């Protein structure tokens, strides 16, 4: 009897967790639709959008630049070592270019921005939630979704594709520097190979990925921040959850997008 009771209890707990998970997905979906709705409805808070663009775009550039720069350098070096039989200028240039534009540029930028900006967005909104600032906004004739969330999503959608394009360029530059100064490749051949293998589809795919990552980071971070509870602990949870979930979603969605483009 005890065993049956225990099995029922375990099943009940699993069921409860499962339904909570479904309920959270439902809540997130409603939040997503509502946020998209408010992006297109005036008034638009241009000043807030501008500040967000500076924060997300300008201030993320150093960390994104450094990450992609070193990734490009490592990639050139590893490709050279790994493909020792084919260690010519064109192979290294092609691998660096394709890897950076298709995958590493967008994913590394996405992960870096999720860590830097996603955490910040979640913490900021969660703090506003637990200190009743969001409640106060609603009583002062301002819709929190429109004033707080929409500018962050708009700015993310603008900035992350631009960051990815810049990151790609910096990453390719990193590969170029290693190829020329360490591997002593011919700069003209390397550059020619890079330009020759550069394809529009890679740039488009990278930009599409970046835009989707921007949406994921801003939506997930704002969602966890907006629904924060339990004071300081809630702020911590929102921040951690936003970074973890954004990162997992970035890695999952990059496979789906790649499969759609090249599958």
């Amino acid at each position, binding site marked *: 009897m005890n065993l049956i009771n225990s099995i029922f209890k375990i099943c009940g707990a699993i069921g409860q967790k499962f339904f909570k998970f479904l309920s959270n997905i439902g809540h997130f979906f409603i939040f997503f639709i509502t946020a998209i709705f408010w992006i297109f409805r005036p008034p638009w808070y241009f000043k807030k959008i501008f500040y967000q663009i500076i924060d997300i775009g300008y201030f993320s550039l150093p960390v994104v630049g450094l990450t992609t720069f070193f990734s490009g350098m490592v990639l050139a070096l590893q490709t050279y070592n790994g493909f020792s039989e084919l260690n010519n200028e064109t192979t290294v240039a092609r691998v660096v270019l394709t890897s950076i534009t298709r995958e590493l540029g967008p994913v590394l930028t996405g992960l870096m921005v999720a860590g830097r900006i996603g955490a910040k967005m979640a913490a*900021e909104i969660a*703090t*506003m939630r637990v*200190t*009743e*600032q969001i*409640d*106060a*906004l*609603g*009583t*002062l*004739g*301002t*819709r929190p979704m429109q004033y707080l969330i929409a500018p962050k999503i708009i700015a993310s959608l603008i900035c992350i594709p631009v960051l990815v394009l810049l990151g790609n360029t910096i990453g390719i530059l990193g590969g170029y520097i290693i190829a020329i100064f360490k591997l002593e490749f011919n700069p003209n051949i390397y550059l020619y190979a890079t330009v020759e293998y550069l394809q529009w589809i890679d740039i488009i795919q990278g930009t599409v990925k970046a835009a989707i990552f921007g949406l994921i980071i801003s939506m997930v971070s704002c969602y966890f921040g907006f629904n924060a509870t339990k004071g300081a602990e809630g702020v911590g949870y929102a921040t951690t959850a936003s970074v973890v979930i954004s990162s997992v979603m970035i890695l999952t969605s990059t496979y789906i997008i790649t499969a759609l483009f090249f599958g």
Partner: protein
Amino acid sequence: MENKSNNKIIIEVKNLTKSFNETMVLNDINFKLFEGESLAVIGASGSGKSVLLKNIIGLLSPDKGSIKINNVEMVDLKRSAKEKILLDLGITFQHGALFDSLQNWENIVFKVKNKEKLTDKDAKELALSIIKRLGLNSEILDLYPSEISGGMQKRVAIARAICGNPKVLLFDEPTSGLDPVTGSLIDKLIKSAVKTVGGSAITITHDMASVCKIADKVILIDKQKISWSGTPKEMLKSDNAQIKGFIKSTNPKLFI
């Protein structure tokens, strides 16, 4: 306790019931706030006073009952219509709820600046004129809320609530954490805001001296219900054990 004059009813709460999960916080709350009247809501911590206020302003939805502001039913009202009604209210939250990312002057004029499309210069002048009434220095205007003391933050929050002279004011513990002199100043301000604009106010407080100064009517919330109501004078003579306890512990002089 009905208002003897034929004043308009500003807020009417009927059979309000609110619970969180299995815990009932408010049960069958009924009261009316008339035009030009100042109502104080007292009760022990956790008795549901702030929950009552949040139900009135629509941040929480009651399980049962009706809340009317200026004869408009707020429960289940469309969000846009609710927002219009809220624009005519001045509200302070228990912990100020000032916007961290805005300077104090921007906090004070937040609603009015958006509503009346004021320039920064005009808005700042308006903020200055309000904080002077609250005994604050003009230097705090350009500072952020985190750069001023808790008492100052409270006054900035009150300045935000009274900016634009709203006719209905809702204060959640406006004098808690303030020194007696500043608390007294806030009391005077609440009283003058009600009298000069012909407005009405609901103030949630634990400060019995403050209740005596600002309120025309007092209600006590205890065990989820309004367990006592009357005027401040009646309150001082009341045999209600909880009221006696409040008065004794907060201001013994009132009993002398």
